[in-house]
């Protein structure tokens, strides 16, 4: 396992800021022994990796098959347990171990192989459905903007039957149509 100093050196000096999240997750998966299958980045941090956004410190949501193994590594790397989050202010990383099981699809997750190991990301389809639900329930423009950008970049490869199942269940069909129109994906991508 890499030492705390090595991880700091790597993340702060060698890895560009917009790659930091995914490299951190890959290192954590390897060091905890959970590997790609046992650790999944979900939520906003997964979106940040998908859309390649500028890295701004925020929390990282992780689903870990064995959270204790992750906690051991975080402790060894100098993270502080502050209850809801494991924090490392120097690295600007704040980890939330959200659970053992991903509530979304495992089949539609994405594995990205970095030079430091591989990282598994929650399914884009689940991220989109949840953002559309937020848009509807809370009138959240930021959530809809994220869904549109994800569709713009990945629309052709998405499982639209999966999205349709949830959108029909929760009355989101009009938002799906609007999202597809605004992302330039007018034709059905089945």
């Amino acid at each position, binding site marked *: 396992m890499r030492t705390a100093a090595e991880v700091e050196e790597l993340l702060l000096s060698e890895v560009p800021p917009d790659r930091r999240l995914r490299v951190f997750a890959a290192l954590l998966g390897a060091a905890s022994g959970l590997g790609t299958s046992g650790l999944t980045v979900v939520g906003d941090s997964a979106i940040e990796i998908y859309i390649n956004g500028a890295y701004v410190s925020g929390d990282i949501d992780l689903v870990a098959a064995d959270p204790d193994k992750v906690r051991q590594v975080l402790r060894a790397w100098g993270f502080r347990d502050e209850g809801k989050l494991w924090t490392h202010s120097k690295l*600007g990383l704040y980890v939330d171990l959200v659970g053992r099981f991903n509530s979304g699809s495992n089949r539609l997750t994405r594995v990205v192989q970095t030079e430091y190991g591989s990282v598994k990301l929650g399914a884009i389809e689940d991220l989109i459905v949840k953002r559309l639900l937020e848009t509807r329930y809370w009138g959240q423009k930021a959530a809809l903007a994220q869904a549109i950008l994800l569709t713009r970049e990945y629309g052709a490869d998405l499982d639209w039957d999966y999205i349709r199942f949830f959108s029909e269940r929760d009355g989101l069909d009009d938002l799906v149509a609007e999202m597809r129109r605004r992302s330039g994906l007018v034709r059905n991508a089945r």
Partner: protein
Amino acid sequence: MLDDIDPGMVALFGSQNRTLVLAALANASGPLSGYRVAKLFGGQKIKVNAELNRLAKAGVVTRRRAASGRLGWTLEDPDLRRLLRKRIRICFAPDWDERRPASGEAVDRLLSEIEASLPDPKVDREFYRPKNWKPSPAGRNLLREKVRPREKDAILRKYAARTSYREGKKL
């Protein structure tokens, strides 16, 4: 080796190794060497090469020269590529990055532009939440995942880190 891939695809293609070899090629933007294919999913190089040769004999995969001049393997059938890209998503980070049009602050600007173009929730309420709309019980559970404990944003604020746009949202 990746061990939790779509069982339907494994059943369709006959083996986990073959499925992963094909998925690696389907997700790549150019030809990949046997070594790169094996590295992508943690397979054994010897088994991956044997599989690639079998698939080449059957005309499923082809040897092509990459832009670098090196020979590599490709899967060219567009329907097969599309199916595999939908069901098994694995890729190398640099290859993935090359295909994404923007990065860093450019993405943030793009997000802001999209957000600015959307209707104002205070004015166009029907667009966001039509009258009588209610989430299903399962949808409500998904929303519950998005309700943040106050403690979380308090910790982030303490470190001057970014808090979520969901802060304070309630069900």
